[in-house]
């Protein structure tokens, strides 16, 4: 991959209609026919409407939505497990939608890897043999693929479990196998379809940490589907919120929490632990001229982190400095504390 930088994923004007005669209804949908109308008049189900998402290389794109929002349908368009009714899916510049079957297979073997909600491991194979599955499909010699698989199994914390069968492992460990299988493929795109939804909360947090740590090394383009906003905010470099097959907001976690696009999103965001998401810049006041005293904290850290760092610091203004050490604003302990519990304060400030 050294000779070629991966170009990211771009989804353009993607439509998906489910039904026997989907193609003939695309124009009607493009001209504004609603999901209900399409279903009542023609018996077709609108899966996705005009999806446009750009996912830059090396970042984690989260797609969030409740069940029935079309998020699992959307992720299956990226490796074309589902064929779109209209639109383009460009992965590293190549349109997946137009690929002939053989080329699509090669694309799936080398460009993408996928992790599934229900793990989808092969029950008759050991952990090790499950992990080499993708490489075996690629046609890699067994000895070489076993080396790769062992490395990844160790990396996800499954050393010593190589010879176990999936049934002998807990859900969390099975999903580690799923993750190792996907990573062993060394594909630039990692698709994670509600990968952690079936795990209990503690293990889920654990697995999120595993993924974030790994991502620092591997820098893949990760598409992560979830129905859990906390998970979305924790993992996502960028987040797209899906409702009834339409993207209703996309942006960074800051954008989503501070500037929800509509009541639907605002309703979600209300329950979120803001201290862990909102950055200090969002609550700081402009720098009073010449008053850059007190302890300094870096811009970009969350309110919760700032509070933890400053819990033992003396009262008074705290200076926020940017990466080069230049002061950019000031914040008080009180401002930080109120931002953690107050839904409106930070939003107004940021909007101002």
């Amino acid at each position, binding site marked *: 991959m050294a000779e070629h930088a991966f170009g990211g994923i771009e989804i353009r004007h993607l439509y998906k209609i489910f039904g026997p005669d989907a193609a003939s209804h695309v124009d009607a949908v493009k001209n504004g026919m609603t999901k209900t109308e399409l279903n009542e008049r023609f018996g077709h189900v609108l899966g996705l409407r005009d999806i446009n998402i750009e996912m830059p290389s090396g970042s984690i794109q989260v797609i969030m939505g409740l069940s029935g929002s079309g998020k699992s349908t959307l992720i299956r368009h990226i490796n074309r*497990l589902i064929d779109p009714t209209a639109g383009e899916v460009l992965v590293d510049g190549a349109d997946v939608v137009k690929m002939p079957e053989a080329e699509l297979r090669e694309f*799936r073997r080398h460009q993408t890897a996928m992790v599934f909600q229900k793990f989808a491991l092969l029950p008759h194979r050991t952990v090790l043999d499950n992990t080499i599955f993708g490489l075996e499909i690629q046609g890699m010699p067994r000895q070489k693929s076993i080396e790769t698989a062992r490395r990844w199994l160790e990396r996800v914390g499954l050393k010593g479990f190589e010879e176990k069968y*999936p049934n002998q492992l807990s859900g969390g460990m099975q999903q580690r196998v799923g993750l190792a299988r996907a990573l062993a493929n060394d594909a630039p795109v990692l698709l994670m379809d509600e990968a952690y939804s079936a795990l209990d909360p503690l293990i889920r947090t654990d697995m999120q940490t595993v993924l974030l740590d790994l991502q620092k090394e591997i820098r893949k383009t990760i598409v992560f589907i979830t129905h859990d906003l906390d998970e979305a905010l924790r993992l996502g470099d960028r987040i797209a919120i899906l409702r009834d097959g339409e993207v209703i907001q996309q942006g960074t976690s800051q954008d989503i929490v501070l500037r929800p696009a509509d009541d639907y999103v605002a309703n979600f965001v209300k329950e979120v632990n803001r201290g862990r998401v909102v950055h200090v810049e969002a609550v700081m006041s402009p720098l009073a001229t010449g008053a850059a005293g007190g302890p300094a904290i870096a811009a970009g850290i969350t309110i919760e982190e700032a509070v933890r760092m400053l819990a033992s610091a003396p009262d008074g203004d705290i200076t926020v400095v940017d990466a080069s050490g230049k002061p950019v604003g000031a914040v008080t302990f009180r401002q930080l504390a109120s931002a953690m519990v107050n839904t409106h304060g930070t939003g107004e400030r940021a909007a101002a």
Partner: protein
Amino acid sequence: MEWLYKFPSMQDGALRDLKKMIDEGFRAFTRAYGGSIEGFFTPLQHFLIAVDRFMTQTPWPVILVIILALVWFASRSLKIMAICLVTLMLIGYFDMWTDTMRTISMIFVCTLLSIAIGLPAGILMARSDRVQRVVNPILDVMQTMPSFVYLIPVVMLLGIGRVPGLIAVVIYAIPPMIRLTNLGIRLVDRDVLEAADAFGADRRQKLLKVQLPLALPTIMAGINQTIMMALAMVVIASMIGVQGLGQPVLKAIANQYFTLGIFNGLAIVGIAIMFDRVSQAYGQRLQKHREIVHG
């Protein structure tokens, strides 16, 4: 009002002509193609004779050791091995060894042939709903048509002997093999298949690495059923010249030899139990990974 009490049937003359026409047509077909069809089955006949010769002409201790070794390989169970040993010893002691070996060799070839035809047929059936719609009623006919009925055309075409017997047995015994292969493949978890697709597996890879391994326990149940049904056909097959345990039974029926009938009948039951226990134990060993569940 006569038509109310007697079903208005075809006229006797017309019906007789129709039957005659079909019979004569088939006879002509037999005369024209019987030879080449027989030629087509010659390799099968040689194979049958070779297996038969091996089973009957090898010294009995050697055969006994081979059978017990196979039983151990398949079942890894001393208990099942002991059952088989006792059964075979009793059969030998009551002077039915040669007939039993003939029957076993016949069942062995029938099972091989049923797998060789049934497995691909089941796979085809699982791949296409249309094939399934066509094949299913054919299998129904094969299973319910009285076997004497299709013995007639088979004997007309090939005469009496081993090969027509083999064909009759396979026709009767192959449906569960086809059906359970089809079922096993269709029952494979969709999520796992989707994963195989997502990793770029082609049809062949999906079949060999996912569908067949996951369907294997069901396919093994099919093989078990096929063996049992083949054994059930042994007596009928003996009517068209297949040697083995069926012939003494046939003789016993004709002459009312009660003891001869029951001895040979029990020998058939004995080898049925052997085949059944061994193939089931093997099938269970294949899905050992399913037994140990976490938690």
